[in-house]
């Protein structure tokens, strides 16, 4: 079973670009366009792989090291996140807070590269990204706290197992956690209403900013890492905060359903919601923090459990 889980985890390397691809395709349909096919990110990666890189003048080792390091962080994150509560033994543990650290390292690498180029657009995006991360990280750990309460552990496998079944939904605590984690997904994947992945307008862009100077295989690594972020977050969302069973076989079926459902939800939100002002984002995330904290308090207090 763990061998199968390991294979599925590694399959994420290949499948991850399908997630943003299908979100974009579905979004286009919802907006009445024909749009690109879900395989578009693969075509883009292939195209980028054949192009040469660009080194802006004055950049050094930091700029060149950042894309592989970002991709390496996300690769490590992929094997830390279990599939349907099961995971292969890669020796990296399965801790939720280690995951937070790896995502922070990836963020650091890109922001440092932005400083290395000295480009205003890159730094503008990095500054906004890091500002939002302050509130996003607080929200993320609080949502993880709510998910850790039933398991009394931050081992993602145990958290997934403890959140399985229907009983957990009888109290209000897990609902609070689910709302908070929905906001986490929006922040960490950089989708509307918090960020707009389709834009390169300096007034609005966040995550696209630090990538502006990159080209070729460097950009391919970073684009893949962005897709892997979707994979990690949507998988966690489906495993921790959507109904699922504890059996592995049925669990995978429900997991696929859950991830597809989350992709559809993201597409609907992107169609229905305009991007909000960046300065309003912290208030939204703060609201999520309060909800998550209330969920934790309700669980500890034993309300409805």
């Amino acid at each position, binding site marked *: 079973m763990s061998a199968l889980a390991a294979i599925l985890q590694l399959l994420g390397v290949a499948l991850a670009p399908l997630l943003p691809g299908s979100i974009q395709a579905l979004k286009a349909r919802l907006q009445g366009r024909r749009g690109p096919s879900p395989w578009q990110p693969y075509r883009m990666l292939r195209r980028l792989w054949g192009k040469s*890189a*660009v*080194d*802006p003048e*004055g950049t*050094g080792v*930091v700029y060149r*090291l950042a894309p*592989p*390091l970002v*991709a*390496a962080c996300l690769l*490590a994150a992929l094997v830390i996140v279990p599939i349907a509560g099961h995971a292969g033994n890669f*020796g*990296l*543990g399965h*801790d939720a*807070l*280690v995951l937070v*650290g*790896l995502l*922070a*390292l990836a*963020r*650091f690498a890109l*922001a*440092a590269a*932005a*400083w*290395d*180029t*000295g480009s205003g*657009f*890159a730094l503008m995006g*990095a*500054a*906004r990204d*890091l*500002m939002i*991360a*302050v509130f996003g*990280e*607080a929200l993320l*750990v*609080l949502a*993880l*706290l709510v998910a850790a*309460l039933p398991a*009394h552990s*931050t*081992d993602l496998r*145990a958290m997934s197992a403890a959140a399985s079944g229907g009983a957990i939904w009888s109290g209000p605590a897990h609902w609070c956690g689910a709302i908070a984690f929905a906001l986490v997904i929006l922040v960490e994947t950089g989708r509307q209403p918090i960020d707009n992945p389709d834009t390169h307008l300096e007034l609005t862009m966040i995550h696209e900013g630090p990538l502006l*100077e990159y080209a070729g*295989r*460097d950009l391919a690594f970073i684009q893949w890492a962005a897709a892997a972020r979707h994979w990690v977050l949507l998988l966690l969302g489906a495993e921790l905060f959507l109904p699922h069973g504890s059996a592995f076989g049925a669990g995978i079926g429900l997991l696929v359903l859950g991830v597809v459902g989350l992709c559809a939800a993201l597409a609907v939100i992107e169609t229905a919601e305009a991007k909000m002002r960046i*300065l309003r984002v912290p208030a939204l995330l703060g609201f999520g923090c309060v909800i998550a*904290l209330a969920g*934790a*308090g309700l669980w500890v*207090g034993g309300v409805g459990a």
Partner: protein
Amino acid sequence: MGVLGAGAIAGCATLALGGLLAAWPGRLGVGVIVQAAGMLVLGVVGIAVLTGDQALGAPFRSSIGPAFGLDQLSGFFVAVLGVTAVPTLLFARDYLPGSAGERGVGALTAGFLLSLVGVLAARDVTTFLAFWELMTLLPAAAILVAKRDASVRGAVYAYLAITHLGGAGVWIALLVLQHHGAIGDPSALAAAGTGAQTLVAIAALIGFGTKAGFIPLHSWLPRAHPVAPAHLSALMSGMMIKVAIYGLIRVEFEWLGATPRWLGIALLLIGLVSAVGGVLWALVQHDLKRLLAYHSIENVGIIALGLGASLLFADAGAYQWAAIAFAAALLHVANHAIFKTLLFLGAGAFERAVGSLDLDHLGGLLRRMPWTGGAFLVGSMAIAGLPPLNGFASEWLTLQSLLHAAFYRPVAVALVAGAALAGLAATAALALLCFVKVVGLALFGAPRRSQCAHANDPALGMRAGMALLAALCVLLGLVPGLILPTLARLAPGGAGAGLSRQPGLLVPGTGAYPALAIAIALAVLTAGLMRLRGSRRAAPAPAWACGQALVPELGWTSAAFTKPLRLVLEGVLRPHRVLEVVRSGGMVQKITYSGHVPSLVDTLLYEPTIRAGLRAAAVARRLQTGNVRTYAAYLLGLVLVGLVCARTGIFG
């Protein structure tokens, strides 16, 4: 008394000898190296005591006669002191010669180190208080020997005034403990009742908290630390405030008898405010050393969070986690001592090379000063809490402690722990933002001043000191699990924490943080991906600035990078901005902008207090007429009041 006792005495004697030699004309370098040898011996003794089963010398006692000894907790702090002081002294060996008041500062450095060791080794109240005061006074003296302008004198005055006012708490706490015979005897204070316990707990929290730099008692720290010579700033921020944490642990954890629950909650709240507040004000500083000083406040806050969580676990009966949280706090003590020392030394090297510590005047130093820049980058990543360096290991443990502390009832405690958890996560993200800014402005990109373009790495001793500390950041980050069981054993009742000694942090109730495996995985994957990327046929091109040339005026500044956060937190930070537009004939000729973020605690707490104090002094001054007859009248009045009191029986 054995080898260790002899070693400790020899180490102190060598240290003192090094101080005398440093004061001798022409022997400064030798003296500092001798001091380093002394600290090395003391550090080894500390490690031996920490890992051994036997305490050294006298136990704690409630008598007046002087007594010295080292138990395991003292051994830990002495070991950390040794580990950070040896590289610092290597640095000072090449840093001090040629600076102002070099011999005086060199000798006072030894005195300062001896006073730190003295506090850690004191086993009775008089010795402790004597060395405690020396520890405060000697660095002040060293700062005044090195720099004499009015602003430095003002900073030192504020340092001494605030630490002495707050430090009264230390005297009160220790003398009350002494009065009840409770130094080294937890049952004595428990017998004295909750009144005495509460008094001691609060007095120690204020006294040691002032010296540790808890907000709102921190105001001296960002004033005093930046004005000291680099190696003294490093020792003050790296170790002096940790010695205050040592005192706090002694009183609150060991001698209080039963620790009340409110103390755990208080520590969590103090830690939360200090961590978030410290990093927030660090973020808006332009001066590198001032920024680092604010980060010390953040990090003592994180240590307080670990200690508070430990008390709450003990209160809930979860003794294993109480020991783990305590070990997390101690691990962060060691980690912060190492990377903060490194960062202050790096700042000193930059100041020497460039002549300025204004962040907007540095730039491109990684290429010009690869040793200093590389070490500084490692230290910055460590303090920003990035895996796989040492800062992440202790922050991960502290986060885990807070998360697990939120499992236990009552709900109010769980909510405070949850808020502290969110606060610590935000603190880590803020520290990341801050140090991306610092390394970006100082190390990466193009030089912002001609001095940066011609800066060079410093002499061997300075390079070696920083490289040693950077290596320690990496080492402690890779194998934190090897010392975790030793630290957990130091917690009160922590002997049975049941942690196995492995390189990674395989703590029960977590998904494990195998630091070494993660580091190897990241290194192998990054190297593999770079290989996959193949040889680069990169086209050099200017960075895109909408077709403009990227001239230095377009470069981003410290203020620009933190602007989004300042806008979001305007209500808390309350930045001041002055924009002057000079027009003539309808044309804008010149625009000047200046802005700064005042320290809210200073404007809301200290300034009103100072104003009230001055007003009271002005009123009191009216009594001092200088007229002999008035004073005679005062005396007469006093005698009369005394007679009336005696007559009415108030004196009993």
